[in-house]
């Protein structure tokens, strides 16, 4: 799916269309935010299928509540709140299941304390979305896959100096985009 990297202006335009009931605006909003909604849902639920379900539920709830949203405000925190509450409701529902129904393995094994602040995770996911694709891929290979710079160079066919300089640029972009998190911390 091609993800638009439009900024606040595009968000406002989308929000206006969304509030007006334009079904097509949902596709664009989904393209921009489904990943971040998934991140928040998975952070709470630690289960792939439940997180997918929470993504669907979040967008449906947002649609049903669209008349309450002021389109001159930022769409991102509003969607985040709906996603967080939806995931929390689903987590409570999972805990209320009879004991004969085992928790999903990942939910039982993963420590919620290790998952951190979901708002921070949301912000990082949105910042990753806005990176150029090649830089995002280098960040993924380094931080998520855990490759060394040499291994990234081998896998991508890039000279190692290019890997390092692009990673440096990507880290700088992310750090600038996420600078406000330092202030909060």
């Amino acid at each position, binding site marked *: *799916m091609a993800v638009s990297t439009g900024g606040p202006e595009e968000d406002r335009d989308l929000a206006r269309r969304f509030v007006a*009931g334009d*079904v097509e605006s*949902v*596709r664009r909003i*989904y*393209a921009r935010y*489904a*990943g971040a909604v*998934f*991140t928040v849902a*998975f*952070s709470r639920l630690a289960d*792939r299928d439940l*997180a*997918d379900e929470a*993504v*669907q539920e979040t*967008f*449906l709830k947002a*649609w*049903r509540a669209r008349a309450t949203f002021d389109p001159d405000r930022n769409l991102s925190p509003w969607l985040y709140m709906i996603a967080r509450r939806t995931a929390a409701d689903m987590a409570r529902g999972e805990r209320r299941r009879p004991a004969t129904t085992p928790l999903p393995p990942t939910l039982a094994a993963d420590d919620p304390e290790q*998952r*951190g*602040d979901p708002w*921070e*995770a949301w912000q*990082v*996911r949105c910042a*990753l979305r806005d990176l150029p694709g*090649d830089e995002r*891929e280098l*960040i*993924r290979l*380094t*931080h*998520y896959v*855990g490759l060394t*710079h040499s291994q990234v160079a081998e896998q*991508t*066919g*890039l*000279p*190692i*100096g*290019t890997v*390092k*300089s*692009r*990673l*440096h640029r990507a*880290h*700088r972009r*992310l*750090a600038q985009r*996420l600078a406000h*998190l*330092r202030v909060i*911390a």
Partner: protein
Amino acid sequence: MTDSEPPSPEVPPDAVTGGLTDEVRRLLARPELWLVPPPELLRAVVDCIAAESLPREPP
């Protein structure tokens, strides 16, 4: 991505991962930052919304 971009020798190795907080770097290693919902989920969302948006027939 191309091979033609020259490396930047001015970037010292210890600066490559610099600039990010430990918390952000920890988050970048978590699967939920990279997993994406399945493509068919968008269709499900749009279908539900479109169905809810249909004008209702009077009783």
